[in-house]
Every structure is written in structure tokens, then in C-alpha cells.
């Protein structure tokens, strides 16, 4: 008897010991997606494949692509799309949502604290050097107030689910997280390709993300303005997330600007228009802190706007996210977030972290070095999967290399057990097969926090692979949150 208990397409689907997002485990079967599994089971593999091919052609034609530029050519690549959705029950989502709201509240309070009185450091909750020596800590921000005390207006949180079915936070992305455009476009794609599979199912909508973002950005404008001008600041077409910048600018109906379109005069920001200089009040920037303002930060940046920080400091322009949030989405600070939740909110974390060993702490370092071959080790300040060593998959030489780097700079590393990521039925070359997935929900915070129902489910399309990054064979799935 198979896990699905069906006779059709899914009869031979076997997730082995992994937790399946649609079916659960033999010991803990899930019921919320049963109706969908039965529908899917009736489909024909060739038909499914034909529709998948059409859907991917659609992505190309619509230019839902990231572009790889070489010397003389540009190649448009799509993020591969797997047509079988990941389905989250209403109760699981309520739990995730509460956990995210709580976590983001604590992180914003922490940011406010470290850029003001630094109580959390004085009380010994977080080691001062972890914050003050962090390259992403911006001393320029100390003493500055931001609207609603919100620093991380847009946050993408990576969540994984292990064999026990428990959702855990793997990583916070509180600088310029990307991927939300795929959440919305995947849904549109699904609606075009599979109207039959989606019929009469109450799925929480995702298409209002742009509207929610526009509203909360407009809320940040300096007080008393009638005509608020919001813009989205992009590094330009060479950025791999450029499609997303276009998408969000379109959804919000705001200009997509580059640094060269903006100019500072009298500590105010203006954009260059055909009618001359026009004021700008809120900037959703998809540019890292370093590049924002060559006068204040990296002096070699040509992507930013000279003088922007001055305008921000005077309260003449709002930035989302605020400057200096990188100190909290750092992989070492991450380990302290459950303690921050306790400290600021006096609550236990609703969503636990993945167990994390801090190499800056003697026991953590010892455990890490003793168990290197079982652990995933990560440098703390990097993102995008750079510098990670996956112990169980590493060669001896790679492990020795990691060991040397950790011993040389223990404060720069953390280690985590390898999470046996949950799986979801996915379209393989010959059948429906289990593939590992993670989840990145997106939250918008202004006065309060709103979480887009669902998020980006990234899927490792190679059999057995745990790596969901698009650069290494990862794709994505539509993610449904059920209404009931």
C-alpha cells in the first residue's frame, strides 16, 4: 500500500523517511491536501508534462527571467517552475503567521535598541562585539529615529521542516530579500495552466502584495504630505533580481529608478523628469547599504545617490528597509533571536530556530570541530549560500579547508545539523517523485506586520538534492494556503 493510497499517478510515490508536505508520514498522515492528491492522481503524466512545458515557455515569453550577462551576449534564464503546488493547511499557516509576526517584532525592537540605548548589550543578552564589530552594524544610524520604530519593512524568512514535521526558522533575510515576484507570478501561471486542478478550492490570494507594499511605503512619508512620491531604487538591468524590481514597480505603479535618476539638493531627494526635478519621499531600495550613498558609505559606488544619507538623517526621505538591518539577519545574531523574543516580548518563540552552534563560544567551537562531517557550517555575514560547507556531502579536503577557516576565525562561523528537509511531490523525468523544499514567506511591516499567505517554496529539482538555490538546480512551486 502506498502512502497516497491511490491507484493512479501517485500510486508509486514514495517519500521514504522524509516528511511529505501533502501526505505527511505513515505515522502522521496529513488530511488537508487529500482532495488535491486525489485530483492529481487522476491526471496523465504526458498531459502534466505538456502543461509544464507550456508554463515554462510562458515564463520565457513574459520575460519572467533573470539575465546572465557575458561579454557580448545576454542569456535569459527562468527559475524552473514545478507544476505541483505545495499546500499549507489553514491551521499550519496560522501558526507560521503568528511566529513570523512575533519574530519580526522582536527583531525590530532589537534594531531600535542597538541604535539607541543598547540595553540588550548592557544586559548581557547579546555579546557587544557581535553587534558593534559586525560589518553590517552602521554607527551612522545611532540616535536616529525611524517611523513606527520599524527598520525591517520587508522581511523574507527561510523556513524548513524536518522529519518530525516541525517548522523551524533557518535564516532571516532582512536586508533586500527577493523572490516575492515569483510567488505572485507562479500563482498566475498555475491559474492559466491548471484551472481544473484549482477549481472550487479556497486558496488565500497573493496578488494583493503590491498593494499592501505600496500602502505601507506611503505610510512612511514625512508627515503632512498630500502627494507622496514613492520610488523603487534598483541597481539596474544587470542585477539578477531586475525582473522582480520591474514587477514590484508595476504592481505599485511607481517609477523604477536607478541612482542616476536621483539627485540631492538642499538635503532633499529629487528625480530627474521631463518636467524637471520632482521630489521623492519614500525609497524602496533594492540596493545594499554599502552602495546607497558614496558620500556616507562605499565611496566607489556608482549605483547610489550622493547625499542620500543626509536626506534620510534629516527625515526628508524614508528608506525601506532602513539602513543597518544587516546586523540582525546575520547568521550569528540569528542564534540569539529566540532569546531576543524572550527579552523584548517576554514570550517563548513560536517558531523555533534550527539548532545552532556558535563557533564564537568555546563549547560551540569544540562541538563543531568534533562533528564537522555531520554539520553544515556557514560564515555569518554571507548570503546566497556562499561559503557553506555541507559536512555529510563534503570531501575530506573540503572538510579540512573548512576546519582551517573556522579555527582561524571562529567568530565568523556557525554550525547546524543537516536538516532532513521535507519533500513535496514534484514532476520528475519519468514520474511524480519526492523533491526537497523550503519556504520563504514575505512579511511587510509598517505600523504592524502583514504576512503574505504562503511564500516562495523553493524546490531542489535534482533527485536527492537538498540545495534549493536557483544557481544550483533549484526551482519553485506555487504555494497554497487553504482558507479553511
Amino acid at each position, binding site marked *: 500500500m502506498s502512502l497516497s493510497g491511490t491507484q493512479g499517478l501517485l500510486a508509486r510515490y514514495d517519500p521514504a523517511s522524509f516528511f511529505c508536505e501533502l501526505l505527511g508520514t505513515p505515522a502522521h498522515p496529513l488530511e488537508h491536501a487529500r482532495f488535491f492528491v486525489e485530483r492529481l492522481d487522476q491526471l496523465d503524466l504526458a498531459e502534466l508534462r505538456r502543461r509544464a512545458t507550456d508554463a515554462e515557455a510562458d515564463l520565457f*515569453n513574459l520575460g519572467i527571467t533573470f539575465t546572465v550577462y557575458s561579454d557580448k551576449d545576454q542569456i535569459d534564464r527562468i527559475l524552473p517552475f514545478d507544476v505541483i503546488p505545495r499546500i499549507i493547511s489553514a491551521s499550519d499557516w496560522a501558526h507560521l503567521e503568528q511566529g513570523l509576526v512575533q519574530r519580526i517584532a522582536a527583531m525590530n525592537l532589537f534594531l531600535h535598541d542597538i541604535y539607541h540605548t543598547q540595553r540588550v548589550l548592557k544586559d548581557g543578552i547579546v555579546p557587544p562585539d557581535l553587534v558593534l564589530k559586525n560589518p553590517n552594524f552602521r554607527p551612522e544610524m545611532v540616535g536616529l529615529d525611524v517611523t513606527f520604530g520599524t527598520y525591517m519593512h520587508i522581511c523574507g524568512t527561510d523556513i524548513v521542516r524536518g522529519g518530525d514535521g516541525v517548522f523551524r526558522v533557518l535564516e532571516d533575510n532582512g536586508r533586500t530579500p527577493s523572490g516575492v515576484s515569483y510567488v505572485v507570478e507562479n500563482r498566475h501561471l498555475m491559474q492559466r495552466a491548471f484551472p481544473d486542478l484549482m477549481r472550487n478550492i479556497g486558496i488565500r490570494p497573493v496578488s494583493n502584495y503590491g498593494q499592501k507594499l505600496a500602502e505601507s511605503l506611503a505610510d512612511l512619508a514625512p508627515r503632512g504630505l498630500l502627494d507622496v512620491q514613492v520610488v523603487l531604487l534598483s541597481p539596474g538591468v544587470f542585477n539578477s533580481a531586475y525582473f522582480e524590481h520591474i514587477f514590484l514597480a508595476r504592481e505599485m505603479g511607481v517609477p523604477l529608478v*536607478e541612482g*542616476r535618476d536621483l539627485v540631492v539638493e538642499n538635503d532633499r531627494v529629487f528625480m530627474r523628469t521631463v518636467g524637471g526635478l520632482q521630489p521623492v519621499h519614500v525609497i524602496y531600495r533594492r540596493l545594499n547599504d554599502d552602495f546607497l550613498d558614496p558620500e556616507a558609505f562605499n565611496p566607489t559606488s556608482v549605483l547610489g545617490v550622493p547625499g542620500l544619507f543626509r536626506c534620510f538623517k534629516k527625515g526628508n526621505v524614508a528608506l525601506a528597509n532602513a539602513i543597518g538591518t544587516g546586523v540582525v539577519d546575520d547568521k550569528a545574531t540569528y542564534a540569539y533571536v529566540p532569546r531576543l523574543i524572550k527579552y523584548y516580548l517576554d514570550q517563548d518563540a513560536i517558531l523555533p530556530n534550527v539548532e545552532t552552534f556558535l563557533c564564537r563560544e568555546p563549547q560551540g567551537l569544540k562541538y563543531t570541530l568534533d562533528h564537522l562531517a555531520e554539520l553544515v557550517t556557514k560564515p555569518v555575514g554571507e548570503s546566497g549560500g556562499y561559503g557553506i560547507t555541507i559536512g555529510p556531502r563534503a570531501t575530506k579536503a573540503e572538510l579540512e579547508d573548512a576546519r582551517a577557516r573556522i579555527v582561524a576565525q571562529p567568530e565568523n562561523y556557525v554550525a547546524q545539523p543537516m536538516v532532513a528537509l521535507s519533500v513535496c511531490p514534484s514532476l520528475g523525468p519519468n514520474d511524480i517523485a519526492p523533491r526537497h523544499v523550503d519556504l520563504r514567506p514575505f512579511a511587510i511591516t509598517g505600523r504592524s506586520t502583514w504576512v503574505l499567505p504562503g511564500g516562495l517554496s523553493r524546490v531542489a529539482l535534482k533527485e536527492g538534492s537538498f540545495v534549493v538555490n536557483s544557481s544550483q538546480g533549484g526551482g519553485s512551486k506555487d504555494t497554497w494556503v487553504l482558507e479553511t
Partner: protein
Amino acid sequence: MSNLLSRYADATFWMARQVERSEDLARILDVNESFSRDSRGAQNWHSILKLYADEERYFDRHNEVSAEAVVDFFVLDPEHPGSIISTINAARENARQLRPLISTEMWQQLNVFYGKLKAIPRESLTEQSLNRICTFIKEACQNHAGITEGTFYRDEGWHFYQLGMLIERADQTTRLLDVKYELLLPSIYDVGSPLDVSQWGALLHSVAAFHAFRRIHPSGMTSATVAGFLLLNQRFPRSVAASVCEASRILDQLRRDYGLNAGSVAADHLRELEEWIARNTIQSIIAYGLHETLDWIQRELIIVTQGLGEAFFGYVPREA
């Protein structure tokens, strides 16, 4: 007051020009194929290199003028910035920048168009397939124009789009006339011969003007009537007169509706062209010199473009 980014206005103007230029180039190549089925074949292909002032670039890479080499150079050569594939790619990159402004369909069509051009094997482009490929290009450009007409929001961006399209069209028509007129000027032996007439007919066909021309000149066809029609006819949409007058009207409307004070240089020069057209006949133009006149119009259009650039697109003023 307008809040259209200068960079967007610039990209819109050029996207329109690039698609218009591609269509015109496809028309010229297509019709040239029929021109060149005579003893002057090589000369005809050479004239296209002259038309686009591309002789130097061409002879950097080719030793002699052949139909295959010229066609490849102008259609699919990705190294040639003036080829159709490069021009459509440039239009597509402008459209990519403009996606917050333009409709999804406008972007998608250019994106798919470029993809199809890229998929054409270069060796498959021969004299035999040229008509089919040129027709495809022409239709794709017309498809773009239709989608634009039907979906582009009528704000400042639309005005800049129209200006780009019209200025390019006027410029292309002057170039076409300039080169072909010289080439087709009848030698004393050819006047009124069947060859002469068929060549002028082909020129009209290349800009889809044959039937319109016949409606106002039911019989006869001379170099002067053809040149006069393409230069001065107010009702034919690809004529210099129609393009210039419409551009002038669009620029006035743009400046008035959006309260834009800048742009007077471009507006003045367009008005001057308009008045000049009203004052002249093809006889007076030929008496003065057609080549000199066309050259002057082209220079005026460059001044208009630079004027728009300095007023609206953030171009640095040229040294006087």
C-alpha cells in the same frame, strides 16, 4: 506637471525609433531584392550600404558586395549594431527598462520577436528566403505598432513614443529617396522606358505607397511625381510632410498639456520644417537640388532630436 523620468522618455523615444527603423529596413531589403534582378544588381545592394552610411563597417569585414553578405549584414549580423537583430535587441532592452510604463503585451511581443530572430539560422537567410523573413519582420513591427496603439496609456510617454516613430519615419524616407533618386535618375536613353517606370514603382512599393500614389496620379510616373509624393504629400503616412507635421503637432500638444516649458528648440525647428513644406513644390525643390534639400531635412531632424534630448532626456548640451 509631469513626473515621467527623463530616462524613461529617452528609452521610449528610442524604442519607437528602433522598431520603426527595423520595419523600414526590412521594407527596403525586401524591395531591393526585386530591384536587383537586373544588370545593376550589385550597385543596388551597394546603395543600401550608402543609405545607412555603413560602407566602412561593411568593408571592414567583407571584400565585395554580394546579396548574401549585405543581407546578412543588415538582418542577422549580431556584431553589426545597425542590423535588424541588433536594433530589435536594443528596442527590447529599452522595453525592458520601460516595463513599469508599458503594457505587458508590448514587452512580451518584443521579447518574443527578438527570440524568433535569434532562432533564425544565419545560413538560412538567402535571396530566396529574404522575402519571407522580411515579411515576418515587417509584420512583427506592425504587430508592435498595433499593440502600442491599443494598449499604451496616453500620457507623456505616448507623446515621446510618437515623436520617436515620426522622426525616424521622416528620416528613413529622406534617406531612401536620396539614394534611390540618384541611382534611378534616368539616363537619356532610359527616360520613359519600362525599366525606369518599374523601378520607381518598386520604390513606391517599398513604402507601401504604390496604390496611394496611383489614386492621385492615375497615369504616368516620373521621378519628380514620385519624389514629390514621398516628400510633400500630407495624407500619405510615411511621407516626410505627414511625419513632420504630425510630430510638430504632438510636440506642441505635449508641451501644452503637461506645462513643459523646455523643448522650444525642437518645436521651432519642427515648425520651420512644416512651413518650408507648405511653401515648396517638388519643382522648386528639384530646381534647388533634391540631394541638398534631403540633406538639410536630415540635419534638421538631428537638431530636433538633440533638442528633445537636451530639453527632456537629460542629454548634455552640445558644444556650440
